[in-house]
């Protein structure tokens, strides 16, 4: 514990400085001394000390004035004031100005040990607390939301305004566009950020499981309910609940959900005690909820209850400007997590990615980059590292010639431009294949 704590002793008496210095050095603290308040403040400007043990009566600036200045320099510094002439007034003043404690010289060795141990404990707890808070913020940091394109900027603006409010949000977008990340971003920037964001993937659970998952259950509520269990609504108290694939829930669950959203009250499965929880709902779906309402699959009242704010995330093919940024981001992410030196991507491969349609959106791009880093040469991602062959087909091709050209090009790439093997696969002779290559002006990839 002491290895991490540093102490600055401020006293105009050399013998006091020396005594304390030797005492704390033997305890393994990092110790420095100053003979005046001025000297101490200049040390504090260049170095950081956890504890300042300072005399009150010193020539020039006194200890109390120094205490006030230390607190403006670094609020969390623990300052202990010492004096040989104790008065109640100075003690009260010192404590009012933020001193951790006030002791009268000389001290009992045991008191000094206790005092420093208590101060160290407080410093360590404060550090731990700050560390945990930072970790919490980091956990919820939404650095995966990368993009400078106009559609993405609009999404970020919507996230910001959604975070300021407490209303329900529906996030729509194709699979793999990052709906959960947007939900996390809303939560992380809201006033609920120090409370949990509880995610439930509604599509992955049967009706009865989802019911028990959301509302919790009492012991013996059903076979296998061996213990009382809190539901996700209860866990999300003061925080947010993220209901993914909301369109998949049954009509019965829609009714129950509507009731909970309106009252914020519910009863555990098999229980009779009403539980109140203060949560904010964020939903996501890749379906068109409005058309599901029109077709009677999704309840209109629930739809309007949820649809206070809507954020639509554009598919990746509509924001190709973001692809270079995303590629850089995923390279950085995976090289770091695999403990590998950073790789680059060659311009042809990047160009091809920008032309690609990405039906699986960012998730597909992310997987592609991860795979390329795993199988690549560790220096540069090139076209051969990317599983793009199938996708070189231009979806806008309508003529037979265009389709033939694309198909031949795909097969040639598949067999690394080995003419014999490609011709065999295409079930034509080599001369025909040469003629087609010439006709369509096909060339190997760079």
């Amino acid at each position: 514990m002491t290895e991490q704590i540093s102490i600055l002793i401020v006293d105009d008496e050399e013998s006091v400085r020396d005594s304390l210095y030797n005492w704390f050095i033997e305890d393994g603290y990092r110790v420095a001394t100053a003979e005046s308040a001025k000297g101490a403040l200049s040390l504090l400007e260049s170095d950081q000390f956890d504890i300042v043990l300072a005399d009150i009566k010193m020539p020039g600036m006194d200890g109390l004035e120094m205490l006030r200045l230390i607190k403006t320099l670094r609020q969390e510094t623990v300052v202990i004031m010492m004096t040989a002439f104790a008065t109640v007034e100075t003690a009260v003043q010192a404590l009012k100005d933020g001193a951790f404690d006030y002791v009268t010289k000389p001290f009992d060795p045991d008191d000094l040990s206790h005092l420093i141990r208590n101060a160290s404990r407080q410093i360590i707890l404060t550090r731990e607390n700050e560390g945990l808070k930072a970790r919490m913020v980091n956990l919820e940091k939404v650095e995966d939301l990368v993009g400078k394109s106009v559609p993405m900027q609009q999404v970020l603006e919507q996230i910001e305004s959604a975070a300021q409010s407490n209303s329900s949000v529906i996030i729509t977008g194709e699979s793999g566009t990052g709906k959960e990340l947007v939900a996390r971003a809303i939560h992380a920037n809201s006033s609920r950020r120090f409370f949990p964001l509880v995610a439930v993937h509604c599509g992955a659970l049967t009706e009865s499981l989802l019911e028990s998952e959301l509302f919790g259950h009492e012991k013996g509520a059903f076979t296998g309910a061996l213990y009382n269990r809190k539901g996700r609504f209860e866990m999300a108290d003061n925080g947010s609940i993220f209901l993914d694939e909301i369109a998949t829930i049954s009509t019965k669950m829609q009714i129950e959900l509507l009731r909970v959203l309106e009252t914020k009250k519910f009863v555990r499965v098999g229980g009779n005690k009403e539980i109140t929880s203060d949560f904010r709902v964020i939903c996501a779906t890749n379906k068109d909820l409005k058309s599901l309402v029109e077709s009677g699959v999704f309840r209109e009242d629930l739809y309007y209850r949820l649809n206070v704010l809507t954020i639509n995330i554009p598919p990746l093919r509509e924001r190709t400007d973001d692809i270079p940024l995303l590629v850089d981001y995923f390279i950085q992410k995976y090289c770091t997590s695999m403990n590998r030196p950073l790789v680059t991507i060659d311009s042809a491969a990047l160009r091809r990615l920008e032309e690609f349609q990405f039906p699986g959106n960012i998730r597909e791009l992310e997987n592609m980059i991860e795979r390329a880093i795993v199988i690549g040469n560790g220096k540069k991602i090139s076209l051969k590292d990317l599983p793009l062959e199938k996708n070189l087909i231009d979806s806008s091709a309508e003529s037979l010639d265009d389709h033939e050209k694309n198909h031949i090009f795909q097969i040639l790439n598949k067999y690394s431009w080995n003419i014999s093997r490609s011709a065999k696969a295409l079930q034509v002779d080599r001369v025909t294949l040469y003629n087609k290559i010439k006709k369509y002006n096909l060339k190997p990839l760079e």
Partner: protein
Amino acid sequence: MMVQLPITLISFGYLQKGIIDPIAADVRSEFKVPVTVREGHLDLSLFYDPARRQYNGNHLLRYVDGEFGNDGCKTMGLFSVDLFIPILTYIFGQAFLNGRTGIASLYRLGDEKYGMAEDEGKMSERFSKEVIHELGHTFGLVHCHNPVCVMRSGTYVEEIDQKERHLCSRCREHSGFH
């Protein structure tokens, strides 16, 4: 490998032979180096603070170091007077960390100082621990968190009783004693 210096125990004032010899034996057995015992003479009144009615440990340590210490050994001054340093009400002993000299006093180590019956054996054991502790500082050891290590900080006698007379394996390794 670190060459360990011999140790000289210097008794100042009246300290019974029966107390010094077991301490020298304990020190020898703990540090495995030659231990010499001798008597020293100094005018203790120079270190007496009438306001506190105690002896200034800082001045005494510096004096013993200057007059009796040498670079060829670790010197330990043994006293029977009440020691203090300006900031603390009392000390059992002190030493120069990684230096050549330390001092210790048995003044506050006897049970009779705390209203109990005199127990010479207990006092001698506490003094041994205190001397080994201060010598540990001269060998560069700081306080240890192991509750039974002799290098654990002890600010009252019960704390001294809780620890053993020996360095823990970690302190032993740190100081180069194996």
